[in-house]
């Protein structure tokens, strides 16, 4: 942590500090005892400085209260050094103050202040929170700080990161499924399937068949050849390619593509497999924060339904 690993430096700093404070006090005291000749007499004392041959600096006494201000600073520093950690690690001050301690007490104060608000939302179910304007805004802020890095500030995701504003849900889009995804994270693993479908041209045939499922542009000859090879994929994606939310296997019959919807990208997916990881937020966000952000995500996906629910859920 510290560059000064030797305890010598603690004593060194403490000594310099104490000697400086005492030295200031002593110097002040000796100066307050000094007497000088002032006034309009023939031979007043000067500071001894002479400029331009004849410019001299006389003594113009400060008001006495000014001296007391100096003494107050000395007293202040002594009191400060007794109460606070100013003398290195060997004497930490009577108040036991630390910056991390202050941070923790401020966190505690904030929790005491905002805790009831979070608790009130925790009692409501997800659609109800999503319908509550303030709850949604709180969720939106949590989303911007924690989720937007991958899913985008508008929640529309990016290549490899799902779009949360459409109606497609790889792992299911119900409130509980969303919460589970946030709490525990998700790990989607598509293994490399090139060999399973026969390798080489067969991979491209399968890719064309997959495109045909959603009615996208494809080579129909290749697609018909790929149809039987698709049996290897049906274990997860289903015989009709409708996917399986329990495994996180995406529905291939719509035009939503996580990694791209061209022959080239699908061929790449089949050949190399894909691994998608959503980290678990348990421990990083607390229960109430997860509840709020889940409500916000829920509201992103189905704005029309959310708008209709408030009276029913209250």
């Amino acid at each position, binding site marked *: 942590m510290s560059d000064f690993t030797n305890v010598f430096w603690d004593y060194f700093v403490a000594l310099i500090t104490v000697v400086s404070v005492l030295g200031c006090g002593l110097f002040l005291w000796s100066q307050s005892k000094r007497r000088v000749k002032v006034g309009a007499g023939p031979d007043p004392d000067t500071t001894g400085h002479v400029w331009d041959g004849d410019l001299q600096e006389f003594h113009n006494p400060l008001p006495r209260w000014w001296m007391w201000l100096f003494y107050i600073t000395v007293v202040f520093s002594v009191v400060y050094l007794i109460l606070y950690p100013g003398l290195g690690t060997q004497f930490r001050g009577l108040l036991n103050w630390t910056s991390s301690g202050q941070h923790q007490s401020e966190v505690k104060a904030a929790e005491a202040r905002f805790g009831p608000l979070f608790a009130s939302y925790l009692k409501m179910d997800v659609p109800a929170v999503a319908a509550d304007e303030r709850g949604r805004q709180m969720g939106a802020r949590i989303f911007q700080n924690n989720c937007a890095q991958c899913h985008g500030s508008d929640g*529309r995701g990016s290549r490899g990161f799902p779009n949360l504003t459409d109606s497609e849900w790889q792992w299911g889009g119900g409130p509980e499924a969303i919460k589970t995804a946030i709490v525990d994270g998700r790990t989607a693993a598509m293994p490399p399937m090139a060999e399973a479908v026969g390798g080489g041209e067969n991979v491209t045939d399968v890719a064309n068949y997959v495109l045909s499922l959603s009615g996208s542009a494809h080579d129909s000859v290749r697609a018909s050849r790929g149809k039987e090879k698709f049996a290897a994929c049906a274990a997860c994606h289903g015989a009709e390619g409708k996917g399986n939310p329990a495994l996180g296997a995406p529905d291939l019959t719509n035009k939503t593509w996580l990694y791209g919807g061209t022959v080239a990208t699908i061929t790449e997916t089949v050949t190399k497999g894909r691994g998608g990881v959503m980290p678990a937020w348990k421990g990083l966000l607390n229960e109430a924060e997860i509840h709020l952000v889940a409500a916000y995500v829920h509201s992103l996906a189905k704005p029309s339904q959310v708008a209709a629910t408030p009276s029913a859920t209250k």
Partner: protein
Amino acid sequence: MNAVDEGKRVQEAVSAATQAEAVESLYAKRVEIYPRAKIGERLAWFQKWRWATVWITQIVFYGLPWLAWNDRQAVLFDLAARRFYIFGLVLWPQDIVFLTGILIIAAFSLFLFTAVGGRLWCGYACPQTVYTELFMWIERRIEGDRVRRMVLDRAPMSARKFALKAAKHAAWIAVALWTGYTFVGYFTPIRELGAEMLALQIGGWSALWVAFYGFATYGNAGWMREQVCKYMCPYARFQSAMFDKDTLIVTYDTTRGEPRGPGSKKKGRADLGLGDCVDCGLCVQVCPTGIDIRNGLQYECIGCAACIDACDHVMERTGLPKGLVRYSTTNAMREGLDTRAMWRRVFRPRVFVYSGILLAITAALAVAVALRVPLKVDLIRDRGALAREADGGQVENVYRMQVSNTTEARRAFTVSVAGLPGLAVASEARFEVGPAAVASVPLRLLADAEQVAPGSHKIAVEIRAADDPAVAVRETTTFLGLRR
């Protein structure tokens, strides 16, 4: 022995002590100053000017927070919300440059007035002078003028003395607390603050600042007075940089006045070989910093012209011409210039330069405030995502717009883009922002993926008020094409 004699005796003792050479500590006990206020039956000329500035500055200071504008306090510096309301103007922290302009104007006004008229600020308008004037007025009402106060202070404690002192401090504290309350009223709504204070429910920080500013007023105007100018104020010390030999200063006409002396009823002053100074000492008695102007220009002199008033009054009574102590310049005194010649010297390079800069900055600030657009926009690219594929072979980029509506009415804005063929706004192109509020609005832009080369392209985003096309902000940013 009556009060007047007692006062004279005390005064002589004090002046004898300060004149002679003495062996002293480097930290001297402060010698209390008892400036005399009453000169003639009526207020004297410069006294009137000083009271006029006291009235003007204090009516503005105490009155301004009570004015209302648009259902809010007209002048309010809301630090917590970071909004600064000055009548119709709402300034935001980003407008700090206007404050810089105001500070430059203040500095150059100070330079200009000082170059022409010496320490005009110190003598007439400085809060230290103004509040000292107010506090001394209270003191006179309760304890009496100079001599009475001197006698009172040297008398042993008695029931009467205690009562007078208690009354004075109570009055001072009342004024000081009201001043502190007014000061805090510029930063937090003053009516609510007053209600909180009456209910004893004032917040910690407000209470601290009311007490602090009140204490500073009480301490500086009641106790510190001229010491603030002599020991604490930096301006008092760097004024000499702005003075030259044509600067108007309060001066004693040595040639005309010396040798000074009271004169005699039997012989004329000329026969006695005396100058016009009758050595009445009134100029010293009225001085708020306790100096003798006849010793020439001194750093303690705040240029309040009290000694001019006093001397003119005496000159009038003795039948001698006025102006033995007057506003004059070093050159006018030395070269014996008449008033016209002296004033002509106001037109000198230093004054032109100061005036020129002052005018330029004032004009620049006025134009800048008049032309400021009541809309601020920060455009931020989404950091996580670069470009993304969208339906229909399009490429999509996402941004966040921080839109600050600095007017006090809800306003609708439209957003448009330019810079790439077929570039279009895919998110809401029209949105509203509440009064004096900031909104974070997502902006999604779409372009044909085929037409946008890989890499970054400069584009411009323009946000425009729906009701006023002149209120617009154009921001540039980048649009990323897909990697192929």
